[in-house]
């Protein structure tokens, strides 16, 4: 669950009965989790993220919602250190992933990113074949044997339900797939590096309703093995698939908690206004 840290214990021991999804709440405090302490992010002189304190429970779907420009994507990027590429971004605070503060000196950025599978807003297949797209990650991370690569590619293409569709043409360019298929390919590509966390940055916003549904179903399947963190600005999607919701506004976390509770019984005035659609 995504809860300010100080409340974490209470929520951890309180198995949310009204949540109809199975959330392994007890495991929240063990190693495989993301903990964020006093995170502040500045881009040039702008204060983008303000005092973020959050713990994200493992093997569940956490949706980050909020109006455009509230810092959702910036937040997601702090989790796999993609801000390293833009020097004008300053990050203060701690982000613990598996009990390791990834902003500590000497932390290997490649290892950090390897733990995080990122699914971007628009699918962006690599300029190579379908097969090579999935094989790319394992190859750069040292898997050389052809057999092992074949196995990985087939396994993950099957996992995302793409294998039957592309079976006969895995050697053709990935760009020839439909956009929904490309997004699933990108997911398979991300899974092939064997991450522990899946980050989705409005991963369905460029897709048609049918492809969106397939991706959403995949997310639900993914949470059996991975911790999934999604940024979305469709409330309905958050309601459909999330176990936990984090509501952000102007760089602050306004409210967070289990989905049912968040939607049915929001505690803050701002949340109620947002949910009722008075701003978006």
């Amino acid at each position: 669950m995504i809860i300010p840290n100080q409340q974490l214990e209470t929520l951890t021991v309180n198995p949310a009965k009204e949540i109809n999804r199975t959330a392994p709440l007890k495991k929240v405090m063990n190693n495989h989790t993301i903990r964020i302490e006093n995170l502040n992010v500045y881009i040039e002189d702008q204060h983008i993220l303000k005092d973020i304190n959050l713990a994200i429970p493992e093997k569940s779907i956490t949706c980050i919602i909020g109006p455009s420009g509230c810092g959702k994507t910036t937040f997601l990027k702090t989790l796999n250190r993609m801000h390293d590429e833009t020097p004008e971004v300053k990050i203060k605070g701690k982000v613990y992933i598996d009990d390791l503060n990834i902003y500590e000196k000497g932390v290997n950025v490649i290892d950090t990113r390897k733990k995080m599978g990122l699914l971007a807003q628009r699918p962006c297949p690599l300029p190579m074949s379908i097969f090579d797209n999935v094989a790319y990650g394992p190859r750069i991370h040292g898997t050389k044997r052809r057999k092992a690569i074949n196995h990985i590619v087939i396994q993950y293409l099957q996992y995302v339900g793409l294998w039957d569709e592309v079976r006969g043409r895995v050697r053709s360019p990935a760009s020839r797939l439909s956009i929904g298929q490309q997004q699933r390919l990108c997911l398979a590509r991300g899974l092939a590096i064997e991450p522990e966390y899946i980050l989705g940055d409005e991963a369905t916003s460029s897709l048609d309703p049918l492809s969106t549904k397939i991706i959403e179903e995949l997310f639900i399947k993914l949470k059996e093995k991975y911790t999934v963190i999604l940024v979305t600005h469709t409330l309905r999607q958050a309601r459909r698939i999330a176990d936990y919701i984090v509501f952000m506004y102007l760089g602050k976390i306004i409210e967070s908690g289990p989905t049912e509770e968040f939607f049915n019984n929001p505690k803050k005035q701002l949340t109620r206004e947002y949910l009722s659609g008075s701003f978006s």
Partner: protein
Amino acid sequence: MKYFEEKIFKIIMIGAAVIILGVLVYIIGTIFYKGVPSLTWDMITKVPSGGFYLGKEGGVLNAIAGSVFIIIGSLAISLLISIPLVMYINFYLPKKSLFSNVIRFSLDILFGVPSIVYGAFGFALMVYLGIKVSLMGGIITVAMLIMPIMMRSLDEVTRLLSRELPDALLSLGSTKYEMTKVLLRQLMPGLMTAILLAMGRGIGDAATVLFTAGYTDNIPSSLGQPAATLPLAIFFQLGSPVEEVQNRGYASAIILTVIILILSFSARYFSSKFSKNKI
């Protein structure tokens, strides 16, 4: 009045288009009209014989070979320098880096330097290094001439690349080098365009090779020998008082044009072959 303006402007635009087409047709028409009768098989298969410049037997194979050698050599050198430089300023340095701005500005200046200055500089450099007038000297000097244009055009296409692909690669845990390798594949068509532009400038330039590659009636067999080039061959032949030789100059111009066309088409063919998997 409104419609009158519209009409006038339309006439100016169409006029401009007609002038450009006219110039093209006139140039091609002239070289073909004067050159085709002299364009014999001998022209492209034989080196000049004793009295070639007085209208006797021979061809310009020496110049064809020299031009092709020089352009291939200088393309190789400038690619080896251009690709790392462009990748560095685009992917390794931050977006608003002072250093990359300095580099881009220097490239603009280098681009504006006239080719005769490169020729003079190349010659001075050769004297300093103790290289004689040779194929090697020509290759180095032409490489200096075409490098700025190659870098600049490669830089332009690289900057147009969206952030998505680099981000996707980095988030998969690629190092910058691994990322660059994939991006280069994506940039292949742009790279080909850069090569073509550079080649077009390099192969047709006379001033750079005048002092540095020299001129000879033989096909150079090593980097240390002087090499003839087509632009100089055209220059020498057109300067002859003998009409037959002048027409051979036009024939040489046809050969040069056709070589450039062949190289461009083959470059395009290969680029489409290599980038089959591009987005």
